[in-house]
């Protein structure tokens, strides 16, 4: 008999109640149960960073958590970053403008990681950005555009004129 639990998780402001197997990964809960497929799954052992989400405001790898562990907690995924349906978050806009997206696979993890990083460090150096995204692998090896986007976004979020 599979061990099952009822869980209630708030994702991007909406509450999702599901009965799941206790061994279900949080990443699979988000994607399969809540059908929020923006969170990507790359390595499933905590190396690639594609599945990064914010758990109660701080980043975590959703493939290294069980869905039951998120019961009663609040998550933010890539779908919840933009302010509304029409507008992009300044970080998303900066990725568009600086060619920070290539195949797009690592992008959700890059954005969630950088969202936390730029909140904690609004005026980073290029080196600090590179360290911040060191836990997110881009197999297009397109880091230059991502770093440019992060620095541009930092400026936009500080309210400086766009470059």
């Amino acid at each position, binding site marked *: 008999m*599979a*061990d099952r*639990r009822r869980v209630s998780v708030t994702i991007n402001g909406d509450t999702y109640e599901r009965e799941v*197997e*206790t*061994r279900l*990964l949080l990443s*699979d809960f988000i994607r399969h149960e809540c059908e929020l497929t923006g969170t990507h799954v790359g390595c*499933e*052992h*905590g190396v690639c*960073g594609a599945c*990064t989400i914010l*758990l109660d405001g*701080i*980043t*975590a*790898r959703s*493939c*290294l*958590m*069980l869905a*039951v*562990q998120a019961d009663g907690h609040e998550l933010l995924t890539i779908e919840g970053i933009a302010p509304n349906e029409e507008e992009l978050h300044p970080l998303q806009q900066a990725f568009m403008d600086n060619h920070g997206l290539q195949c797009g696979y690592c992008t959700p993890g890059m954005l969630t*990681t950088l969202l*936390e*990083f730029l909140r904690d460090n609004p005026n980073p150096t290029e080196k600090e950005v*590179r*360290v*911040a995204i*060191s*836990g997110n692998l881009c197999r297009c090896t397109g880091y230059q555009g991502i770093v440019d986007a992060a620095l541009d976004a930092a400026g936009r979020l500080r309210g400086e004129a766009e470059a």
Partner: protein
Amino acid sequence: MKPPPFTYHDPRTIPEVLDLLAAKDNARLLSGGQSLMPMLNMRYVLPDDVIDLNRVEGLSGIAAANGSLEIAGMTRQRDIEFSDVVSARCPIMTEAILQVGHRQTRNRGTLGGSLAHLDPSAELPAVAMALDATIHVESKRGKRDIAMADFPAGYMTPSIELDEMVTGATFPLWEDGHGYAFIEFARRHGDFAIVSAGALMTTDGTGKVNRISITVSGVGPSPLRCTEAEEMILDQTPELELFREAAETARAFDALEDIHAPSSYRQHLAAVLSRRALEKAQTRLGGSNG
């Protein structure tokens, strides 16, 4: 890449955890999950029961008292990283923790998890060895303390019983103005280190070294104190040539060999990195940290 079936438990108190540990003979404690979850996903471990510590009360916190730093088992690496008392009183730990994984993993990973997992190249067990920490473990049978020197029983195996859990550790603090350094070599930032080295030292009024600690990890199955090098430097005036000679003794350790590096390369790194750690520690003598 999905965890195998198990029965999940989320106790709220330490006695509940200890009851479960005593009752289940193939159980695993889940703390930050940054090592156990990958091992479950890859099915390297097949526990019948997973006991989650994340909802247990009173298992986290950092306090400095009586010349020691007391850190509870479920304290997140993130909290150690951002702790003012740790960076002020035990800066080697702050320097080491910044080399533990990445922001996302430090947000979840814990002290107790890292100690109990005992990866040969993990930073926190190395810091525990460098500082002669005491590890606190508890079971239904009672509590006991284990000196870090006696804590590793073998490769990734702490000397604790199946019904015991690590509840925290005490790290004796060094005096103000001590020199310290923790450096490591990894292929990419945040990867498992191939080898790391930690050094702590103090000097007396005449400039001679009156206390020294040198540790290498990623070399043996658990962190190693370089006692021969320590003896060579103790009571001497710290200088480059002495550090070089002393650090060379680290080359004599039997070293692990795996796909990441042959043992000869780990021995080489042990000598080079322990020398660099000593040099860096010396430059920090008398600083405001400590």
